[in-house]
């Protein structure tokens, strides 16, 4: 019953997402596309923090490396003829490599030590992007693919500037990567990682190679984050060191906490709230960050489990009233 309700609501969201662009303005579609990309990024972060209990302050590295790798592919592999799908693949794989590399370096660290080691590593990558002007364009970043088209087999050619097409394109990858991430959490490895979150010490004494499991989640998280970075440059038509900046890492963290970092759906809900909150507050005032900050603090104080926690509580109350309170 509860399972059916879950699948029904997921189906409803997917259907809505497919139909919405038919009634929304171009600007709204653009915003929702951004929400979807942040959702992918947020889910990749959930795998580390919410699912495995690994706190990273350097998640922007996976996102940014994926973004730069995709951008460089678009510019250098075959010039204007570079297939968009190839660039996305390169971006995702670069994010994956970055995840693997981070994992190898910080494997034995936990808690705040892990957080600061990942922060330091990501800032190093940011510095490379900032300084290596010949490759990355320094603080100007890279552009030059705004006029590209995507050729979709059987469907036809679409310009990247076509907002509606971009939306569906990104949505397709979101469904794919989020479903894959969901599946990942349900495999024996996903189960092991959840066990590591609770008691990694005992996991080791059950004969589980805890470091290998952690390395695998870093790698997989990097893959998904890298994919989101590649999609983001197609939407923004540019890449800059800001993609790698620690403020981007903290955006991901804030998105996770707002939505509920311990829940798979949390970052998706958080991405929605964050993008719209920033968009509307910044249209009223330049000091929007103050208001976002206040909202963040209030939520932390009163609903530490985020919006997903609030929804969860409400659902439990409903099922309790209807006499199905047993978990």
């Amino acid at each position, binding site marked *: 019953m509860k399972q059916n309700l879950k699948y029904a609501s997921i189906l409803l969201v997917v259907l809505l997402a497919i139909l919405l662009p038919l009634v929304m303005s171009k600007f709204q579609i653009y915003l929702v596309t951004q929400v979807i990309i942040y959702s992918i990024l947020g889910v990749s972060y959930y795998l580390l923090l919410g699912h495995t209990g690994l706190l990273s302050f350097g998640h922007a590295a996976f996102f940014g490396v994926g973004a730069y790798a995709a951008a460089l592919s678009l510019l250098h592999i075959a010039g204007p003829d570079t297939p968009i799908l190839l660039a996305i693949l390169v971006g995702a794989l670069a994010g994956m490599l970055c995840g693997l590399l981070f994992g190898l370096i910080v494997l034995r660290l936990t808690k705040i030590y892990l957080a600061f080691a990942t922060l330091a590593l990501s800032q190093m990558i940011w510095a490379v992007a900032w300084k290596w002007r010949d490759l990355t364009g320094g603080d100007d970043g890279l552009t030059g693919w705004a006029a590209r088209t995507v050729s979709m087999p059987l469907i036809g050619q679409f310009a990247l500037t076509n907002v509606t097409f971009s939306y569906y394109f990104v949505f397709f990858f979101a469904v794919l990567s989020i479903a894959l991430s969901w599946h990942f959490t349900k495999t024996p490895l996903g189960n092991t990682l959840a066990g590591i979150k609770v008691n990694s010490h*005992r996991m080791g004494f059950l004969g*589980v190679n805890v470091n290998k499991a952690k390395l695998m989640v870093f790698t997989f998280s990097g893959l998904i984050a890298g994919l989101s970075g590649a999609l983001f440059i197609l939407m923004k038509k540019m890449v800059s060191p800001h993609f790698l900046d620690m403020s981007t890492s903290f955006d991901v963290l804030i998105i996770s906490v707002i939505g509920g970092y311990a829940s798979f759906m949390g970052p998706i809900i958080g991405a929605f709230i964050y993008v719209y909150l920033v968009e509307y507050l910044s249209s009223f005032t330049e000091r929007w960050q103050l208001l976002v900050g206040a909202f963040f603090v209030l939520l932390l104080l009163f609903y530490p489990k985020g919006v997903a926690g609030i929804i969860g509580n409400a659902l439990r109350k409903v099922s309790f009233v209807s006499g199905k309170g047993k978990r």
Partner: protein
Amino acid sequence: MTNILTLKGVTKDFDRFRVIDGVDLEIREGERHALIGPNGAGKSTLFNLITGHYVPSSGTIHFKDTRIDGLAPYKITKLGIARSFQIINVFKELTVFENMRNAIVAKQGLAVKCIRRLAVMGQVRNESEYMLDRCNLAAYRDELAGTLGYGQQRALEVGLAIALDPELVLLDEPGAGLSPEETRMIVKLIREVTAQKTLVIIEHDMDVVFDLADRISVLSYGVILATGTPKEIRNNTAVREAYLGTLTDNETA
């Protein structure tokens, strides 16, 4: 009779303080071996050395023909040595079933597999439920482990080690903090589930020790005072002094 575990000259120093001082110990295949000694004698430290939690400062540890000192705990566990802990060390925020399933997944070598869903693996589910049944925990299947009574948590603590189906089981005070009734149950459980295995058990309850053990080793201040059958240990003067201190001297004086 062949030795399953052999410690030679094992020493462990913490900040120049010698906790284990040249321990030689041979555990024979199939025996039930009790490790006793006063508090702070180094019994748990010895377990931590055998299972890879600590690396010996000197000396060697062999599991059958494999040298295991210095190996990571998970590698030693995979070779066939499983342990339980003196302080309950289960997955408190997971259900009893999920706890046991973690052990079964590890035992079946599936822990880092990431293609198929765990839920469709019937053999994992069946074996987990079978082990819960053997540990008398089936009734608590869906309770969170941290909310169980102390006796049940103890049973789960031991059960997680046993579920790995190891050749050598190390149990660190499985009866600690239990009522006499609960102790009887856990001893019965230990007897059943270690029937075909080699067991080393740390225990303070002498009734349990003398009832369960084929041989006993006495550890005091990081040194093995004596190893022998329960009868030999009972009659050993050095052991009596270690346990009773200078009381006998005072009495004779």
